[in-house]
């Protein structure tokens, strides 16, 4: 039978089954419309169906992978199943009759999924004694545990004929006061268990059933301690079970995780980090209170069943819920909500605002140290609220808010933009107030300290985006620009109380931020202004003036204004040594810049020695693990590399990894960054296999520590792709990049540079696979997008352009490739530099394109140009130089200039003889080319 006909049979057969027996015959006749064989087939299948049904043919699965396979009437030990009560991801819950030693109804929970039987049982045996002693009116008793014949663990619990908490409150239209009273009872039950060392781990309204006793609500917390005993030790187990809600009785598998979102504490939403304690339950209780008050789960609106787990986790860890009073303000059903609590909306909001907001939010703190340390403390605060006494939960102070914003910004770069705005504007206000206070000489000491502190936070905060680690953040830049513009217009000067010192401080900080974002021109302008102010107000030799000068010198370095940098450094250094001494931190910074400038001037040995000196003093004065000491080590590693002392360089990089791991822990993000530097070193020195292994490990850690969607994680994943391409495994690279791209779309802000970077590498991999059209399209897109954002002459835009030219070349679109190459070459020389590999490669590609087009004359001219660049900017043993000379020789031979050709080929052989091992294939090939030309008759 063909598939088409099968579908037809399918439809008629099933429709017939759905048709009442007396009309069925007529239906079939009509539906088959005279097709006798169709009619026969349908009738036959109906007959078969009838027989199969009678015999219960295949009605029962012979293997049950997803179900417990238990049902009504089944016996498990001394329990007989009466009916199923509910189903969750981890298990099925049945109502069962216990027959021995006495008759009673119990709730029987059978664990069905992925649980290692022996492990669960062993753990449960340990827990069971404690759980059995858990005897409290508000906690459902756990009686027994065991394993079914098929080895599935089960738990036997007190059967509660109750209603889930939230339903109970809403159906009975409990007032705010009644809800809070009921909640305090729950807290008492939790406190009782916590005192016995038992954590629930999955508290949520569905796990709190409410029954009625003497007309009063009686809460019963179910599943206490069960989550713990079903949580294994192995990482694979832990990652799964630590967040799966074992007690979910009424949730479908799809709703499983979603059902727990908002109740799960941030530490439980952390991969691998198992530092769950009683305060994790406090968080869940805070979430339950939140829902009782507002009718919404905290964060509940941010996820849906399609949200992947990692995204849900990120939200739990990073997003703050709105305060309850704010939440109901934004709720369209607020009137109804208030009514169901027996309140006017206005009145409800007023009641929530203040104490109840603070109590709820204190329990929901991301940092468990800031939560209530016990359920009883939370209960006591609610009782204080009842008695109209001040509660211990307080609105957060300004400095706390600032530090929190700062932390969050560091942890979650992508979400930080609005935070920065708030902070930048907020800080100026705070600073201003403080400055005025100081001027009025009110509490002068304390306020001055506050100014400094605030300034420190501003410094640290705004300096934190580091493009070398995080990729460039466009929106951050725009924000800074807007802020700087305000500053220029004098709007903020007025706000700063016209205090030039404060203004200079803000300018300095902004400059530092621009510097970190790679916007050196703006950074220079701003710090120049700060420097002018400080010179005028504080004098030439004031430490702050010198600091600004030193900073400007380092920016000159990055702007390649090396002579300006040198002049400024010499003056500044002399003054700093006189005023502060040679070992002062600021002096050392200037020395560090000086060492960098020496390196630029190719005074390699002096540069190395100065770096060594700065490193030595920093180590002594700041300690071996201070960030600036580590910066020195890093700079030294770079110098060693330049001097081709690879072993020393690598040893330093390893030492940085070791120090950071020791000081900050192996999983600290800075440690991971230094591992990444190590990977880059391995990659650059061609040790791909080692690099890949190390990178994969680092990737796993970054996912664990920073989350899968953090820009740094993306960069590590990106590196994996680069390595795969280098190892000629483009297929894997393509898969990786496609996945990365999908995730980047949702995880990173639109237009994030990493997305383009990823796509650039994807294009590279696709090119290797011969999937040229796809690669071309990608490159065109990112080239255009980057050009729009950063300008057509931005180095990265030019990189994409160069790749595009190469892609066109790969596709034999030679003329297009040539005109692209000609177009970008002068721009590369100007904006990227004549000494950069990117410029070299673009030129090499252009030469190849001319040659392929048969334009040997132009190929020769460009070849000579590239050789000039190599000779000027690289050492005589630079491999491309010899190869280029060989190529020029071959070109000249084709052009009929035999003498010149021979000269270049001999030159290439001579170079390669020096640089390469005897017998090198490359060398042999060059020799062969020379020999061939020598052998040809001279015409």
């Amino acid at each position, binding site marked *: 039978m063909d598939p088409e006909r099968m579908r037809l049979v399918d439809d008629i057969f099933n429709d017939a089954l759905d048709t009442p027996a007396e009309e069925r015959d007529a239906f079939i006749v009509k539906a088959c419309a005279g097709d006798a064989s169709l009619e026969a087939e349908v009738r036959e299948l109906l007959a078969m169906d009838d027989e199969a049904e009678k015999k219960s043919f295949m009605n029962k699965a012979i293997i049950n992978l997803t179900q417990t*396979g238990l049902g009504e009437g089944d016996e498990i030990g001394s329990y007989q199943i009466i009916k199923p009560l509910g189903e969750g991801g981890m298990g099925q819950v049945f109502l069962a009759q216990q027959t021995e030693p006495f008759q009673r109804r119990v709730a029987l929970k059978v664990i069905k999924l992925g649980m290692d039987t*022996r492990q669960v049982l062993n753990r449960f045996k340990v827990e069971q004694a404690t759980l059995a002693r858990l005897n409290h009116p508000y906690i459902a008793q756990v009686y027994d545990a065991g394993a079914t014949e098929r080895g599935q663990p089960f738990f036997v619990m007190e059967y509660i004929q109750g209603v889930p908490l939230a339903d109970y409150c809403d159906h009975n239209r409990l007032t705010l006061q009644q809800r809070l009273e009921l909640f305090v009872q729950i807290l008492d039950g939790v406190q009782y268990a916590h005192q016995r060392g038992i954590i629930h781990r999955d508290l949520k309204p569905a796990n709190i059933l409410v029954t009625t006793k003497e007309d009063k609500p009686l809460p019963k917390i179910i599943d206490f301690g069960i989550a713990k005993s079903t949580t294994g030790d192995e990482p694979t187990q832990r990652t799964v079970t630590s967040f799966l809600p074992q007690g979910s009785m009424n949730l479908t598998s799809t709703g499983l995780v979603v059902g727990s979102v908002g109740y799960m504490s941030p530490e439980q939403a952390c991969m691998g980090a198992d530092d769950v304690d009683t305060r994790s339950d406090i968080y869940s209780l805070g979430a339950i209170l939140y829902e009782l008050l507002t009718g919404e789960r905290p964060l509940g609106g941010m996820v849906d069943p399609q949200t992947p*787990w990692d995204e849900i986790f990120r939200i739990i860890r990073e997003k703050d819920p709105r305060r309850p009073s704010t939440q109901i303000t934004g709720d369209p059903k607020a009137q109804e909500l208030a009514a169901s609590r027996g309140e006017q909306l206005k009145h409800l909001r007023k009641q929530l605002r203040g104490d109840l907001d603070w109590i709820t939010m204190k329990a929901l703190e991301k940092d468990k140290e800031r939560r209530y340390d016990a359920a009883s403390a939370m209960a006591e605060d609610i009782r204080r609220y009842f008695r109209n006494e001040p509660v211990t939960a307080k609105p957060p102070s300004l400095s706390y808010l600032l530090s929190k914003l700062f932390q969050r910004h560091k942890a979650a770069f992508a979400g930080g933009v609005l935070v920065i705005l708030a902070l930048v504007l907020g800080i100026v206000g705070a600073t201003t107030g403080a400055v005025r206070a100081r001027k009025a000489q009110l509490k002068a000491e304390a306020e001055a300290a506050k100014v400094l502190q605030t300034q420190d936070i501003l410094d640290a905060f705004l300096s934190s985006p580091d493009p070398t680690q995080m990729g460039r953040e466009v929106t951050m830049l725009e924000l800074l620009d807007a802020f700087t513009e305000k500053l220029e217009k004098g709007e903020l000067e007025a706000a700063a109380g016209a205090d030039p010192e404060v203004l200079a401080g803000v300018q300095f900080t902004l400059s530092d931020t621009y510097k970190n974002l790679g916007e050196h021109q703006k950074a220079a302008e701003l710090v120049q202004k700060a420097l002018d102010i400080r010179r005028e107000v504080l004098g030439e030799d004031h430490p702050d003036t010198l600091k600004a000068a030193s900073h400007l010198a380092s920016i000159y370095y990055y702007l390649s204004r090396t002579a300006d940098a040198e002049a400024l450094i010499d003056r500044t250094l002399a003054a700093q040594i006189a005023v502060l001494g040679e070992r002062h931190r600021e002096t050392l910074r200037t020395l560090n810049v000086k060492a960098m400038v020496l390196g630029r001037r190719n005074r390699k040995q002096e540069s190395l020695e100065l770096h060594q000196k700065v490193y030595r003093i920093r180590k002594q004065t700041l300690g071996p693990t201070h960030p600036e000491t580590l910066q020195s080590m890093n700079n030294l590693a770079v110098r060693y590399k330049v001097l081709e002392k690879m072993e020393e360089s690598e040893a330093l990089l390893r030492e940085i990894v070791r120090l950071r791991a020791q000081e900050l822990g192996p999983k600290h993000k800075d440690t991971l960054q230094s591992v990444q530097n190590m990977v880059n070193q391995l990659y650059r020195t061609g040790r791909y296999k080692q690099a890949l292994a190390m990178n994969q490990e680092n990737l796993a850690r970054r996912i664990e520590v920073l989350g899968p969607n953090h820009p740094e994680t993306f960069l590590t994943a990106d590196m994996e792709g680069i390595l795969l391409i280098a190892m000629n495994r483009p297929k894997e690279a393509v898969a990786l990049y496609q996945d990365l791209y999908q995730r980047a779309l949702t995880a990173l802000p639109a237009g994030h540079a990493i997305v383009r970077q990823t796509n650039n590498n994807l294009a590279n991999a696709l090119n290797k696979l011969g999937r040229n059209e796809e690669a071309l399209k990608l490159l065109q897109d990112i080239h255009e997008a980057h050009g729009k954002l950063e300008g057509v002459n931005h180095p990265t835009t030019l990189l994409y352009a160069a790749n595009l030219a190469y892609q066109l070349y790969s596709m034999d679109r030679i003329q297009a490739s040539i005109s692209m190459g000609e177009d970008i070459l002068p721009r590369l020389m100007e904006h990227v530099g004549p000494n950069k590999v990117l410029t070299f490669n673009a030129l090499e590609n252009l030469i190849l394109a001319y040659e392929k087009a048969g334009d040997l004359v132009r190929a020769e001219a460009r070849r000579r140009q590239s050789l000039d660049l190599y000779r000027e900017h690289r050492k005589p043993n630079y491999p491309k130089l010899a190869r280029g000379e060989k190529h020029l020789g071959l070109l000249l031979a084709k052009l009929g200039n035999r003498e010149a050709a021979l000269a270049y080929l001999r030159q290439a052989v001579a170079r390669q003889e020096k640089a390469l091992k005897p017998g090198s294939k490359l060398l042999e090939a060059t020799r062969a080319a020379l020999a061939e030309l020598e052998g040809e008759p001279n015409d």
Partner: protein
Amino acid sequence: MTGKDITLLLQDWQKGDEAALEDLMAAVYSELHRISKNYISRERSGHTLGPTGLVNEAYFRLIDHNRITWQNRAHFFGVAAQVMRRILINYARERNTAKRGGGVMVLSLDNVTDAAEEEGIDLEALEEALNALGEVDQRKARIVEMKFFAGMNEKEISEALSVSSATIRREWRTARAWLFRFLKEGSDGS
């Protein structure tokens, strides 16, 4: 194969890359084999690991739980159903040809084959029938597989195959009648 790879394969398969299925099955199969071997070497109590425990353990080992959605879960069990079908038919064949002891999977499949016998189902004949059905209508064969060899419910199957539960229910009914006839004719004929 890592959890990440498996998850990627699942996603590929979900997107319609049928080649990914073979890789998936191979990965699941070898993981099952590995677990059951480990299990045997560790186990002393004589407790046997049933297919459910085995597959679920494989699920937790194979899947990258950071990235999976519940739809992937259904897909995974869809693959496992096919693997179980293969394992079971191999086992039944070996049992029927009295070559016991050399079975690939050292786990308690006797219960399963016994259960099939009790239900009057000849696994080898069913395999033939299912193959025939698959030639006419691939999806119906898959539905039978998931329902019969994995105990997946309509909702789970609908997630795995991305069609409505109603379609699953209807196609199952037709498939069952179709298989019943095939088996009946086969036994009548022989």
